[in-house]
């Protein structure tokens, strides 16, 4: 442990050092690095994230019935998360590569611990109470699983062999099952998807992709058997929301009413009736996109989605510019995970997907997912800013 901390501190010192000696570097014959690069911050990604967060805080202010206290709390979380992001950005990718197995197995142990001694929160064991902070280990796995896969494939020949795919599958399945057991279907799904994204990028044989999709469909009855009753209700409701309009179908109907009634221009910021009069459930957390749709209309929703696509574009760009397999797979995996997380949330809120408890990244009220997400962006920045610059 101390070894890691020592490494970590030396990395930080190194980046500060390089910043201080930028004048020297400028004069040297090596390629020019901008101030942002010296700070290991990717300017494009940073501003896009900041734009989404700013827009998100305005939406949250309205969704929280103009409760400034909630916005301040969220802002504080962002500040902490930004700090963590900046620190993550200072750590060179090879360090992440070294730590990967440790992070992954530590995460697995924490998940087991949650199952053993987790405190019951909202009917599901997700939180590990560390005395001062409540901690959700399943969130770590969203990053740890792509890391572990990238680490596993870094020295292996791509496209992967059958044996490699099986091992990769285990790397994904074990934490996903532990999370699903909590039960937290949404995060388990996100973990599996983050793993699947990396596998897709390794150049996995199309036949295997098709085969596993078929297997997934075939295993639906088995999955159904293992589902909790509320999860089954959600799926049934997705198939037919009118089945139970006041019960499980209520969420999705009210959410569609909110978005639909917003129209092109929206009802105006702070003027949404669905959210302010509490018809829309969870309007500050999982269903916050409906507030955006209701108050800011099609235009506001489009702006938000386009901002997300900016972030996505930059992440994919970073992955394409990455210089080795590990960073390439990790960056690509994280980028696609980000896409899937906002896409599933918006899809759920607009009724494309069944209701799963996935928050809208960077906007939904709540702490843990913000930390994870900004840490991921930090890693992406680190990957991009620690590249060896090849002079032509």
């Amino acid at each position, binding site marked *: 442990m101390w070894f890691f901390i020592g490494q970590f501190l030396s990395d930080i010192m190194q980046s500060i050092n390089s910043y201080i000696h930028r004048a020297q570097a400028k004069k040297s014959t090596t390629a020019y690095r901008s101030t942002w690069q010296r700070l290991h911050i990717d300017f494009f990604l940073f501003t896009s994230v900041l734009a989404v967060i700013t827009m998100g805080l305005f939406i949250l202010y309205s969704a929280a019935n103009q409760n400034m206290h909630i916005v301040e709390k969220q802002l504080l979380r962002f500040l902490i998360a930004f700090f963590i992001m900046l620190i993550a950005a200072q750590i060179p990718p090879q360090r992440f590569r070294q730590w990967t197995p440790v992070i992954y197995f530590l995460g697995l142990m924490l998940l087991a611990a949650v199952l053993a001694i987790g405190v019951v929160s909202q009917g599901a064991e997700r939180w590990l109470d560390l005395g001062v902070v409540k901690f959700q280990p399943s969130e770590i796995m969203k990053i740890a699983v792509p890391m572990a896969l990238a680490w596993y494939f870094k*020295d*292996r*020949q*791509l*496209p992967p062999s059958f044996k490699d795919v099986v091992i990769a599958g285990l790397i994904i399945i074990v934490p996903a099952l532990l999370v699903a057991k909590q039960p937290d279907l949404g995060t388990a799904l996100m973990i599996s998807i983050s793993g699947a994204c990396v596998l*897709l*990028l*390794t*150049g996995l044989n199309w036949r295997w992709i098709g085969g596993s999709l078929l297997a997934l469909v075939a295993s639906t009855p088995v999955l159904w058997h293992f589902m909790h009753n509320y999860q089954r209700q959600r799926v049934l409701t997705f198939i037919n929301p009118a089945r139970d309009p006041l019960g499980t179908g209520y969420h999705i109907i*009210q959410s*569609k*009413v*909110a*978005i*639909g*009634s*917003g*129209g*092109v221009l929206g009802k105006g910021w702070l003027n949404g*009736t*669905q959210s*302010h*009069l*509490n*018809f829309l459930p969870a309007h500050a957390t999982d269903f916050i996109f409906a507030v955006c*749709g209701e108050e800011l*209309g*099609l235009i506001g*929703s*489009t702006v938000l*989605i386009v901002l997300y*696509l900016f972030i*996505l574009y930059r992440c*994919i760009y970073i*992955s*394409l510019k990455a210089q*080795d*397999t590990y960073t*390439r*797979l990790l960056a*690509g995996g994280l980028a*696609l995970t980000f*896409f899937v997380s906002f*896409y599933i949330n*918006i*899809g759920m809120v*607009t*009724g*494309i997907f069944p209701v799963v408890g996935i928050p809208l990244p960077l906007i939904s009220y709540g702490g843990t997912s913000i930390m994870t997400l900004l840490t991921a962006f930090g890693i992406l920045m680190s990957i991009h800013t620690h590249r060896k610059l090849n002079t032509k």
Partner: protein
Amino acid sequence: MKKRLRIKNHQQELRLFQKRMIFTCIGVGVLIGLLFFRLFDLQVVEHNKYTTMSTQNHLELLPIAPTRGLIYSRDGILLAANKSVFSLEITPDDVKNLKQTITKLKQIIPISQDDTDSFWRLVRRRPQYQGIPLKYHLSKQDVAKLYVNMYRFPGVHIKAHLMRYYPEGKYFAHTVGYVSRINPRELARVNPTNYAATNFIGKTGLEQYYEKQLHGLVGYQEVEVDAQGRIVRTLERVAPVPGKNLYLSLDVGLQIAATKAMGKYNGAVVVIQPSTGQILAMVSTPNFDPNLFVDGISEKTYRKLADSKAEPLFNRDIRGQYPFGSTAKPIEALEALNDKVITPQYTIFDPGWFKLPNYHHIYHCWLRTGHGNVDLHRAIVVSCDTFFYNLAHMMGIAKIDTVFNKFHLGHTMHIDIDGELNGIVASPEWKQRVKDKPWYPGDTIISGIGQGSMLATPLQIANVTAELANRGTAYYPHLLVKTTSQDDKTTTMFKPTEEQSIIFPHWIWHFVIKAMVGVVTEPEGTGWRFGRGLQFSAAAKTGTAQVYSDTGTQVKGKKVIPIRLRSQSLLIAFAPVKHPKIAIAVLVEHSPHVAPEVAHKVVEYYMMHQHHLHDKSLAPPPLLPVDSTTPPPTPAKSSQQLITPFNND
């Protein structure tokens, strides 16, 4: 193999990765396109549908009930009021410990187990932020005690609402009627929007007949509510239009006097002001307390009323159909003289019975010993049956029916209470149609003394009296005088409808009315019980009708006739003779000789209090005296603004 594995082709891997990434980007593009398609579908294509749903979600129209119109008597005494009643309500959301609160409240006012049981039932069913009633009908003492202690009970409220109340209670049970909780069948008949906030509807009497005027128009407020149904703010408010107040022709003093005069007897009293057709009193006994019905009558109490042999719920004035008895004699005399069937000098000898030629059946006079020589005047005065058996035989049933129809018998009086019955003017066709039997000569004979199948309601009999009093002209009897808006700004007078005049030569009217005066004043007159001690001139005719009289013979063979088979007593009278102010019909069931005494008390009360009763402002224009030669004036066409008694058809 191992060696091959270690060698990684970085360029190839990068190309593979780029290929995959491009493929993924295409996938992302397709998915994002799908998302925008979905948003477009929701926010543009189906925008209107969802806007409607959103509006329905948060905007509500809350109806506000209009205040029901009041009902006053002609002398301005309140007959139907809206009383504030107080109930104790608890809002569970605002109370920390419900059980403890109720225990504490029990120490202040009595709260029954039933009250608490129904309270807990409601607590489980209703939203917790709403007031839930714990006790209804708080007494003034309870309210006072609770108000003093209110500061100790957050979330406990005393709520006032309006409930119908009948201050005069049983005296107007059959005329004013009562309101009660509206039921689905009634709700289907009325405009449900207008009754959205109304809990009560007129069930009987004037409350039912003038429901439309009394109810008023519903108001509403548009409010914004949140998902829990809590009102966030009021956007718009349209005040309800309160119902109209009714002023009746009924006089409280006379009504009570008539009810008291009836005493323990069952029957009916109808008093009409002949010049206007206004009903001054309309009594049906036994009666009941209409207040019992307003907030739901208990099954036990209702059974007791409904199953009673005396039928207190039965409105005898308009639904009781009785034989005329001898009160039919004066009108038969009118027709007989007019048609020159007999002359005033025509005399017969009454041996105490009458027999049709070629028939063996003997029709007895009420006086078994007979009246000796009887002319028409004396026949009316002593109510000689034999004379009228003979007269009926001479007239034939067609002429008897003609005069009955002239006096508007056999038709409803279009009084402003629903459920009035027609009565029966029996004719050969009627008997063939209804009873499928031929008309026997004997049927005609007993019709001569108002027996047989001839039936009339007390209201119809009173109307006949008014027609006699006015010498042939009258308004249809009615109860409403005027309606006013609740701010007293607009008044609508009731326009009574004139009946078709009955035309006889003046001397015939004079002759018959003189005979009716004789009933009261002459020593032999059958109306002596009515006339003794009266301070003014009056004309009357008594009647005794048999209840079960298929053959026209009296029920006999028993020394004590059971009450329900005893003859009923009838009296019609008007006074003063020259300018009649009052026409009265009294019917007492199963108790001979009582009606004249009841009528005496009622008429005496009226004459003693007449100055109070004579209010010129309430009267419509007096009827024109009808000359026997000129046709009656056609009634003015009522404009739509005026209420006519036929508005129900």
